[in-house]
Each structure stands twice: as structure tokens, then as C-alpha cells.
């Protein structure tokens, strides 16, 4: 009998993933990342990257404006907090729906073109949203300050249920469970697991197969009489909805929405996360998101004195030089590291970290198979699938 309708290796992958998310604090504490704010970010960007990967990884359409959906999700969620209730459920659902609605509208136009034109169209739409959020839409977005909660917001549903108003700003919650701290992380973590499961199902479905066919040769698919538009549009909308969901989560953990979330550098960051982990693989994007957020956190905290300490084993003169050189890459200069990392990955490891892992695994396997009997074919197949 098939459990959750997925096969054996996928089940293993899912179990490992769930364990990794649930044990997140235990895994991250020894390497200095064991606090809830950071882990919440891991989970949220993991969700975002999974969504982006459904579009870019499967269909090969490189969207350079995906952060727009994240921003839209955030704004929607904060408005839901202001108007309806501080419970995160309506906010997250509305954020997802809004992300989907905008993705439908933008995708309908942008997907008429492919390749570089698609990238530029999505970039144009994202920049439009960003510029509008900053200027004309200030009544909705609160412009540069960003949208914030107020004490006197309507909160209709909370009012119906007789939630008492206090002098302090209300905080977000899930039926009494606070969205900050560890409980917040576990809410995000559960959403991450659900998103991962959805992505797994899409990857293994005939629909996912179709998307991959679009990536490998769209022309041939058209010649065989398949209309590819509905498939790409569906992928774009799903991916936009997940981006909206990530935006909603972001607002749920920290009820604040600003236009800078939609800027195209933010879109570039999500592309980087996906590429770094491995576009088109299941777990790659989540790993990429985690790695980037982790190093952002670690590297940004470094300064000259810490570096001097790190290089204290070197002779005095070298120590200063090394600290100055590496000082370029840490703290304020974190973006430099990010850019350099981006280039290195694209140049040397276009398949991302997952490809690197697979290469190493293959190397080990080849070495062991040259000494012993060749590895049985089914096992190799399964591992390739798991790595996907």
C-alpha cells in the first residue's frame, strides 16, 4: 500500500526533511544559528525558494520579478491584521490568494514571451509594483515608512469575538499560539513541510513532467500539438501563490511590510538561493535559502577585531593584511561575498550544491565500483531520484 501516494525513496526524503525541520533548533545550535528569528527566516525563504523553483527549476522560465509577489503577500497580510484579526490564518490565506491573483494577471501577459524577454517583462512588472508602492499607492502601502499596525485599527473579527483592546500594540498569533519565538518557527516550519510536500507531488506528477518537457524543448512540444501556455501559466500562478504565502508568513512573524521587499535586488536574491542549492532539484532551493541566510547572519556580524582574532595565528604584518582583505567581504561587505559566490556557482557549478554533492557521490561510487563489483543499477537510479 502506498502511504500518502508517494513511492519509497520519496517517503524517505520526506521523512528526513520533516525531521530536519522539526529538529532545526538542535541542528543549528552547535553552528551558532540556533535562535528563532534566524530559523524563521530559513523556513520563510525556504518556502519562497520552493515556489520559485516550481517555475524556474521545472519550466526554465527565469523570472526576475518574483519578489513582487512576496511584497504583495506581505501588504495583504498586514492589511488583514489591521482590518480583520490578529490571527494569522486569514492573513496567510489572503496573502496566498492575492499572490495568485497578481501572478495570474502578470503571467497572462508575461508568458506570451519566453527566454530573456520573459525575464525583462517580469522585471518590468516588479519594478512597476515597486515604484507604485513607493509613490501613488502610498495610501495603501504607506510609502517609504512601510505599512505598520496601529492600536486603533478596525480588526472587525477580533471585535466580534470580543478580544479586549489593550494599550500595547497587539501581536500576531495562531489561536493563542504566539507567532514570535519558537512557536513562530514551528508554524513556519509546518508551512514549509506542507509546501515541500506539494512541490514533491508536483515534481512527480504528469503535470510536473509536462513542465520539464517545456524546459527541455518547448518547440517540439508545440509541434506535437500541445498547447504549453496553460501549463506555464499554472506553474507561474502556483509559484506566485507560494511567494505570496512566504510574504504572508514574513508579515505574520513581523507585522510590517515595506516596498523594498519588492525591489529587483530582492528578486535577484531568491534566484541566487535557488541556483546555489540547485535549480530543478527538490531540496536544493531550501538548502540554498538556508545557506545564504545563515552566512548572511554570520558574516554580517563580523568586524575588523573579530577578524584580527581569527588570523591571530599569522605573523603581525600578515595578520593586519589578511584582516583588511577579508574585511571587504564581511559586515557591510556581505553583498560582495554574495555577488562573488553567485559568480563562482554559476561558473563552476551550474547545478548548484546538489550537483556538487552528486558529483562527489558519483566519484566515491566509481572508486568503490572499480575495486569491487559494479553497483546494482536500481540502487543508482533511486539515489539519482532522491537527489533530484
Amino acid at each position, binding site marked *: 500500500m502506498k502511504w500518502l501516494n508517494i513511492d519509497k525513496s520519496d517517503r524517505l526524503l520526506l521523512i528526513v526533511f520533516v525531521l530536519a525541520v522539526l529538529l532545526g533548533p538542535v541542528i543549528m545550535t552547535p553552528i551558532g544559528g540556533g535562535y528563532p528569528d534566524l530559523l524563521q527566516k530559513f523556513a520563510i525563504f525556504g518556502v519562497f525558494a520552493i515556489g520559485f523553483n516550481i517555475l524556474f527549476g521545472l519550466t526554465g522560465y*527565469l523570472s526576475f520579478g518574483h519578489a513582487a509577489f512576496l511584497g504583495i503577500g506581505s501588504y495583504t497580510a498586514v492589511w488583514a491584521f489591521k482590518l480583520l484579526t490578529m490571527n494569522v490564518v486569514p492573513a496567510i490565506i489572503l496573502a496566498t490568494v492575492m499572490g495568485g491573483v497578481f501572478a495570474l494577471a502578470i503571467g497572462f501577459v508575461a508568458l506570451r514571451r519566453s*527566454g*530573456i524577454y520573459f525575464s525583462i517583462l517580469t522585471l518590468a*512588472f516588479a519594478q512597476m509594483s515597486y515604484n507604485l508602492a513607493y509613490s*501613488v499607492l502610498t495610501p495603501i502601502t504607506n510609502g517609504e515608512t512601510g505599512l505598520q499596525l496601529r492600536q486603533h485599527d478596525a480588526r472587525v473579527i477580533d471585535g466580534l469575538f470580543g478580544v479586549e483592546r489593550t494599550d500595547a500594540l497587539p501581536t500576531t498569533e495562531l489561536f493563542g499560539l504566539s507567532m514570535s519565538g519558537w512557536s513562530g518557527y514551528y508554524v513556519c516550519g509546518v508551512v514549509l513541510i506542507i509546501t515541500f510536500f506539494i512541490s514533491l507531488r508536483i515534481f512527480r506528477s504528469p503535470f510536473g513532467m509536462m513542465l520539464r518537457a517545456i524546459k527541455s524543448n518547448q518547440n517540439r512540444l508545440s509541434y506535437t500539438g500541445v498547447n504549453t501556455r496553460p501549463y506555464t501559466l499554472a506553474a507561474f500562478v502556483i509559484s506566485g501563490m507560494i511567494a505570496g504565502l512566504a510574504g504572508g508568513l514574513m508579515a505574520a512573524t513581523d507585522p510590517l511590510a515595506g516596498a523594498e521587499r519588492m525591489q529587483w535586488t530582492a528578486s*535577484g536574491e531568491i534566484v541566487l538561493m535557488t*541556483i546555489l542549492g540547485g535549480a530543478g532539484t527538490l531540496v536544493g532551493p531550501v538548502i540554498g535559502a538556508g545557506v545564504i541566510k545563515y552566512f548572511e547572519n554570520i558574516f554580517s556580524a563580523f568586524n575588523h577585531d573579530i577578524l584580527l582574532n581569527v588570523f591571530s595565528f599569522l605573523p603581525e604584518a600578515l595578520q593586519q593584511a589578511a584582516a583588511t582583505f577579508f574585511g571587504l567581504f564581511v559586515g557591510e561587505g556581505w553583498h560582495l561575498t554574495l*555577488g562573488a559566490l553567485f559568480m563562482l556557482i554559476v*561558473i563552476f557549478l551550474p547545478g548548484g550544491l546538489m550537483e556538487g554533492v552528486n558529483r562527489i557521490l558519483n566519484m566515491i561510487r566509481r572508486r568503490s565500483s572499480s575495486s569491487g563489483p559494479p553497483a546494482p543499477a536500481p540502487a543508482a537510479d533511486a539515489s539519482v531520484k532522491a537527489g533530484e
Partner: protein
Amino acid sequence: MDALVLQILNGLDKGAAYALIALGLTLVFGTLGVVNFAHGALFMLGAFCAVSVKALLTLEHVALDPEKLTAWGTPMEIRTPYIESWFGDFGATLIDYSVPVSILLAIPVMLILGIIMERGLIRHFYKRPHADQILVTFGLAIVVQEIVKAQFGANPIPQPAPDIFAGSADIGLLIGFAENAIVYPWWRIIYLIFSAAILGAVFAFLKYTTFGMVVRAGMADRETVGLLGIDIDRRFTIVFGLATVVAGVAGVMYTPILSPDYHMGMDFLVLSFVVVVVGGMGSLGGAVAAGFLLGILQSFASMNEVNSILPGIDQIIIYLIAVVVLLVRPRGLMGRKGVMED
């Protein structure tokens, strides 16, 4: 009427910058088939050539003058740039003209940078998918931008135009409007003339020289030109260098109009890409025409009259036009069939 003319003029100088950047982008598209997201960073590097030259020229030495006293009663510090004490008035003029002088530095620097970039990086990406090209040049743009930020700081560094161009010209008087109806800064006029000259030179180079002919042939059919025994790769490297120089000098001359900061390249890049797409991928004339067109439209959209009817239109007009053009004329205004369509 005079308001319209003024808006056209205002749009022209921005359009000139778009056109120069878009020209380089298109050259690189057309010849190498590479989508260069780092082109805006090259524009920015050009601008920072001007900043460096200015900083070098104004290196000062400090002398204490015991005759004069400051308000606190200490001897006054007299700061004179070295260049002024060495060359006297000529030195002072040189400092005044630091922006045009920077072009002399920018041309070789940008050419070398361009050639290194093509040989060292871009060359390995000819056969990779466009997505990879976009990503690697995007990464490079971030790296360049952050290095400049580490070196020069995050704040814009104003660069004055030479004194005699600092004022404004009363253009309206020349073409029959009332006095002071159309006032336009001298430096922008210089910038327009300069960009027209550069655009003309690039077109003439491609149209009337043998080298240009080979390059155009290579744009049309690279393989055949290679089969004829011409080393097309080497020429394309030089074209890349040329595009870099155009972006660089455009950046140098733009500094008095917009104080350079480290992210100006990114701001211009996004718009220039839109310009290239509107003009038609691979069409040099289209890129230039679209650059000026979008610059002027943008300046019209920022008029108060227009903004009161359609609030916010000035923020999005360029993107809106790009969307409409791509949907109505997918190849852009002057795009050719078969260029960058896969």
C-alpha cells in the same frame, strides 16, 4: 508650447544616456549573443573614473601661514592642490575641467577592463543558456558595485561641470520664444552634442570601415564569417571593449548631471534593458531611437498636467510602454527576425 519644448529638451539628456548604454548592450547582444547585466556597472565605473581623476587632481598639500590667523587665533592653513603649485593657472584650469579630462583616463581604463572581462569571463558563456549569462553578469555587477562602495562610500559624490558651462542657456530666445521661457543648462547641451558625436562615430565605424563591415557580417552570420577564414572572435572582443568604452565615457560625462553613487549603474541598467527590448533586440538604430523616445516620454509623464490626470504615470511609463510594445510588436520597434528569439 514652450512647456512642451522644455520637456522634450529635458527628456533628451536622459534619453541620450539611455541610448548610449543601450547601444553598448545591443552591440554585445548582436555580436556575442550575450546578455550583459553588468553593463550598467560599467557605466558606473566610468562615472567613478571622473571621481578618481578629480580626487587625484585635487590632492592638496597644507602650509601654515603665520601672517593670517583664523578666528581661533591659530595660524591659518593654506591648502593648495599640488597640481596648482606645480603648473599655476594651468593646474587650476585642469581641475576646473576635471570631468572632460577624465575621458582621457576613462578610455584606456574601460577598454582594458572590457577586454579582460570578455577574455576572462564572457567568452566562456557564449554557449551557455541566456539564464546563465544573466546570472553571472548579475553577480559581476554586484561585485563591481560593492567594491566601488567599499572604496568610495555609499553617498553620491557631486562632480561640478567646468565653470563656463555651469550656467544655463536661454534657448527659447534663439527659436523665437519669450525671454527665460526655455532655460536649459549648458552642460546638458554639451552632453547632447557629445552623445550625438559618440553615436555618430560608432555608427560610422561600423558602416564605413572594413572592420565594421566584418563585424556586421559576423552579427548576421557568425559561422560563415568564421569559415571565410576571419578571426571573428578577436574582432568581437574588440567590439566588447568598444561597448565598454561607450558606457564608460557616457558615465564620465553624466557625472555633472547626476552625482555618481555606487548603485547608479543598476538604476540605469534596468531602464536600458527595457530600452533595448523596446527598440528591438540586436537593432542598433532601434536602441538609439527607443532611448531618446523613452527619455522624452518619461519627461512628459512627469509634467504636472499629466500627473494630475494619471497619478503615478511618471513612475511606470517606461515599463508600461515596454509591456505594450512586447505584446503588440514582439520584436520591438525595429527588431529583425531571428535575432535572440530562441
